[in-house]
């Protein structure tokens, strides 16, 4: 049986991971000059990242409300994915702008 925290971690990993993938796909399209497609992929990336962020925020809120959370390595790993993804998305957004003005 899947514990709820494990489920949350996997939701974060999966959404953040897919968001990162889409952000990189957007970069590939921008490199080819397909800025419209790049923009669409970036929007999809933001949506996926938003889903991961939402789940993450929920745990933080629960924790702030005094709920005891059994934090394990899987959750650390999930956060790792999320933070990497957010940074990748920010940088890719900037890079796409650079390609646009090239």
């Amino acid at each position, binding site marked *: 049986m899947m514990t709820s925290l494990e*489920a949350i971690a*996997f*939701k974060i990993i999966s*959404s953040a*991971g897919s968001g*990162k*993938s889409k952000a990189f796909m957007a970069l590939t399209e921008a490199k080819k000059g397909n800025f419209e497609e790049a923009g669409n992929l970036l929007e999809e990336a933001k949506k996926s990242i938003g889903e991961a962020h939402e789940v993450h925020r929920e745990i933080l809120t629960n924790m702030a409300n005094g709920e005891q959370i059994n934090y394990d390595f899987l959750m650390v790993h999930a956060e790792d*994915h999320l933070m990497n993804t957010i940074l990748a998305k920010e940088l890719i957004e900037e890079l796409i702008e650079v390609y646009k003005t090239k």
Partner: protein
Amino acid sequence: MFRVKLLLMCAMGLSTGILAKKIQGIAETSKMIDHDYFEIHVTSIDEYKEYLKQPISLVLVGPQVAFKYEEIKKTLEKKGIPTLLIDEKDYGMMDASTILKKALIEIRNYENKIK
């Protein structure tokens, strides 16, 4: 009866390791799978080529590395190994039985294609 050896791939091989354990558990109770032959391995995107020295029926790719999927698929196609991108929802829910089912279908489709 399916004779399968699966290879699961993600960014670092950590979360996929947990998924692999779940798939292993389901495969062990499945009547559709040859248990003596069945194997499941986990690897990362940087190390997967190491695993291709042994027989692999299908490579499953996690949604975290979807942006490298086409590249991986091309490399593996040359070696005659089919690939499948794990659905984001299936992965997020850790739905091992659905993932295994889709993997078996993909293997069957590939076998029919090369016949």
